[in-house]
């Protein structure tokens, strides 16, 4: 009966139901009291302002058609600098310290009495690439980046953020390797000069870092680190420890040098990593919540 009382008060009941309700009301004081309350509500609703009609919609559409859109807000000139500074704060200090320590050990080894011509360059070519690749492997992904979820929620492109952070880490390792080359040349450990020393490690450093970056974005930091370590170990063993009659290690040695092919391959891998970084929802990707 209560539901019918509401409709009765609103005047929306049919004739037969209306007669039945009135018959009931004649003998029920409680329902008469309820009806009085519903009638008050119906009266109050009747005095409320009418909802906006089609005029409102028409006016909004007309205004948006006639008024020029607001100009797109351009990023301020200092945006790039702010982004670099913000990303620099997210690079773990332990990674930077470890990179510097390993590179320092590389300098000590390179500065030792040369076993053969080109010794110092070979040592730096073994140390600098693995330092950079390990650093790159530690800067991306939900398990390595403490601000991954926050960064993914910002309007800034994930590609731009990844590129900025990689540039920071790689630039740091580049400065370390350049300083190491300078020190090694300064102590006279390699008579061929700084340029030859830099040429020994620059190409492999770029290639191994770019490969590490693709693997980080594609499958994760742990796999990138594992693959980088195995490739690096192969290059070490290609120095004469493993027997290579079939010429497999010649490929490794060729890739571990500075030439046009290694630089172009590194650039291509960097482009692939950037494309992969912008695809899909980072937090909804496969296995985002399960580690294996």
């Amino acid at each position, binding site marked *: 009966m209560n539901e019918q009382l509401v409709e009765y008060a609103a005047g929306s009941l049919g004739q037969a139901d209306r007669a039945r309700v009135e018959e009931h009301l004649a003998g029920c004081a409680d329902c008469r009291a309820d009806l009085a309350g519903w009638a008050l509500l119906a009266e109050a609703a009747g005095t409320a302002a009418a909802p906006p009609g089609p005029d409102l919609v028409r006016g909004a559409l007309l205004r948006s058609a006639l008024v020029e859109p607001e100009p797109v807000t351009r990023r301020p000139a200092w945006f790039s600098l702010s982004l670099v500074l913000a990303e620099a704060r997210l690079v*773990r200090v*332990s*990674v930077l*310290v*470890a*990179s510097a*320590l*390993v590179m320092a*050990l*590389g300098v000590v*080894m390179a500065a030792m009495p040369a*076993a053969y011509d080109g010794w110092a360059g070979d*040592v730096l070519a*073994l*140390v600098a690439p*693995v*330092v950079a690749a*390990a*650093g790159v492997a*530690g800067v991306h992904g939900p*398990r*390595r980046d*403490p601000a991954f979820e926050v960064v993914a929620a910002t309007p800034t492109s994930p590609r731009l953020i990844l590129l900025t952070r990689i540039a920071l880490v790689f630039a740091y390792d580049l400065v370390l390797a350049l300083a190491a080359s300078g020190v090694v040349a300064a102590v006279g450990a390699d008579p061929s000069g700084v340029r030859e020393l830099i040429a020994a490690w620059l190409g492999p450093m770029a290639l191994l870092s770019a490969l590490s970056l693709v693997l980080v974005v594609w499958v*994760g930091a*742990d*796999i990138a*680190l*594992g*693959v980088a*370590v*195995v490739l*690096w*170990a*192969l290059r*070490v*063993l290609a*120095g004469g*420890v*493993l*027997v*290579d*009659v*079939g*010429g*497999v*290690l010649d490929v490794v040695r060729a890739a571990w040098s500075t030439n046009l092919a290694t630089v172009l391959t590194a650039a291509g891998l960097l482009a692939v990593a950037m494309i992969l970084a912008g695809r899909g929802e980072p937090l909804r990707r496969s296995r985002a919540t399960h*580690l*294996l």
Partner: protein
Amino acid sequence: MRPLPLWRHEVQRAGWTALLTPPLAVAAPLLIAFVDAGASASDREIAQNFFGALEMGVPLAAGIGAASLVGRDPAAELLLTTPEGYRAVLLRRLAVTVGWAALMAVLLAGTMVATGWWARWPANHGPLVGQLIWLAPTLGLATLGFLAGAAFRGPAAAGGLVAICWLVQQIFAETVQEQGWSRLLYLFATTRGTVPADWTANRITLIAAAAVFAAVAWPLLGRTERLLPEVTE
């Protein structure tokens, strides 16, 4: 938690670095050995690559894997709130890492013994005692990586230390073997040669060094607040 699901969980948490690197480290020298076989390399040369995978590849993989165990667990704080000590969790993951690398080594060594390739390397020390070829350096580098992880509180410096240690022993092989004490700690005494009478002592010393590394790591791992990333004491 029952033992089997517990260990399955620890396998998942050990991470891909620990799980992927050992098979890759074994597969790469094997690939070169197979290509060499097609290019008419001698049996001794091919066997050298097999033994290189065992004595150089497996220990490096185990060392890098063990170095990656401390300081990268997103659930470390949660685990510290459980009644079971975090040290036990890390030790189980170390066992998974070393065990997986050992399984790869045993499979390769078993195949070599069964196919006769084991006997084609002169200094093979027999199929039983010869397992120390991979076991001693694997335990040495894995416990060194684990200790470094506990001491440095993160995988970056620990992995770097393991890699540098491995690299130094590779490129200063002759220098390391000049002194008696460094000869005993040389990781690659089988494939890169040592004084023949020193081989057994070398293997025992490496295992003893592993025990010392583990003993030093034990109290460090007990101070669990040190293992949390970005926490200063």
